[in-house]
């Protein structure tokens, strides 16, 4: 078994994770595009920490990229977290509210 094959198999397995139903669907294309977009988005967001300190941004960048690739596909989890379940939305709202109040109180 050469290394190329294993890499190919890994990639195939990764792609298979996206497929729901009968393989060829436009849902699959949406999921793959969404996955890549999400990866790029969080990489850009991690770069943001350069405003606080540059080394922190570099460490975060590496960690986030590694984690996102390791836990791929994350898009399914993203979708689940953005479900229209009332309790989930309320949970996120409470978290947001706590963060906003904490940040502003801390800053003041």
């Amino acid at each position, binding site marked *: 078994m050469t290394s190329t094959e294993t890499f190919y198999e890994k990639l195939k397995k990764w792609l298979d994770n996206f497929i729901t139903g009968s393989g060829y669907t436009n849902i699959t294309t949406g999921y793959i595009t969404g996955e890549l*977009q999400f990866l790029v988005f969080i990489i850009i967001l991690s770069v943001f920490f350069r405003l606080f300190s540059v080394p922190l941004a570099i460490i975060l960048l590496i960690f986030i990229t590694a984690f996102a690739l390791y836990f791929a596909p994350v898009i399914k989890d993203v979708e689940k977290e953005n479900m229209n379940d009332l309790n989930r939305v309320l949970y996120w709202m409470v978290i947001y509210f706590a963060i906003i109040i904490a940040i502003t109180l801390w800053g003041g």
Partner: protein
Amino acid sequence: MIESISNLWSIPLLVIIPMLTAIIVNFLYDKAIKPIAISSAIIILIISIISPYGYHWFCGHPALNPETLTFTFNPNIFGYKLSLEFIFGPLQHIMIFISSLILLFCVILSTIGLTKHQGPYIALLFLLFMSSAIVIMVNDLYHLWIAVEIGSLIVVGIAAASGTSISHKAALKYGLFSAISGAGLAVSLALVLGLTGFSNISDAIMYLKQFGIGEMSTVLYIAFGFFVLSWMYAGGLAPIHPLKSEVYGASYPHGTALLQAQSKLMLVAIGIIMLRLFGMLPFVKEVMIFLSVITMMIGVIMALIQIDFRWIIAYLIISHSGFVTLGIGLGTQEGLIGGIFQAVNDIIYMTILLLCCEALFYFGGKTSTKEAYDIAKKSPFIATATILGAIAASGIPPFNGFQSEIILIQACLKEGLPEIAVLILMVSVTTFIALLRGIYRIFLKPPELQDQDNSNVDLPKVLIIGIIIFIILSIIIGIYPDIVLRFIIPVVKEVLSI
């Protein structure tokens, strides 16, 4: 702004005509509804065009000049007005004009399309317009809160009006949530009122600037937190986006056009008020930028994985709300101009897409991309219009989306935030991808089974006229952005000068 001591005639008309029409239309039978509703929508449109600028005060007085003891409108002179105040200025002019244009088409389309419960539905449309008109004109906390509460109740009603179980569930979720954040806004109002003693926002800001609040600033932070909560739910920002997009997707498409116009108006109005009231606190702008970036990202990613054209548009509306709030959150002159301009453009191009979506209903009522329909062959006009709308939404010149996005990108670069500029670009590109997926499946892909139904579908002429008018508006604003910018720039300067 032209100032006069007497109250402006047009402001009460813009509030009372929709309200009266709603009451009358609610009780009428089918045939009488159409002329009354359409004529009052036209009257509102005319008023919004010809109205001069001015104030409407419920109580209070012009500021008293301490030296001469005469009344003055000069904002540089320190003095309280103590009034519940409505303002009709350039910003209100352009915003109310656009939303009354959408109201006119919505009303006509619903008189054509709806067969059951036409009266109450049109009444809700008028009340929705009224709440958005109030929220953009208001300059006191009391009416702001009332407009937001009424607005959210009407949104619940319009979502429930389409009558499916999905829409009832969406309405109930949004209703429960609006109950929480409406109470939150009332708490915030109470806290600001308790701190300053003024309900007029200009007075409250003047008090905070003049005397400071020292140790009590903690209370102001909590007020800010509750204010952000109501901002999030009125505009459907990040954690609320599943509920808001569900409301957009579950309503009739023409209703969604008015709903998204209302939510953009709310975002602009509440955002500017937050910037004026809390702008001097640390981390306020950062919180606003953070919320907008998350909204932009999550909205567009969720749009990518949708399979129904309506839900794709619903999530894109959420995502593009992030542009508006981003501009306001930046708090600079370019940022504010870009944000407000983006709100105007967004309303226009999303209306094009939503009216095209409405047209799909006449071809069998299915908007899912699971089945291909080949509608481009049946109606090349709708296919072309949808593609033009998609191009406008993704910020490609010569359409209007380009002009505001370029201002926003420049504002981000000037603030030293190139990452956000990159994000804006990416969201625009992804918008195009998300829309094109739907467009290809619905309009361009030939059906797998041979389509038996080749009968011609007659689209209502109003729908076609509406789409054409909004496309023309989009191109004109794209080529001559100064048409809109000359309304926005003086307002922005005034906001930042306080």
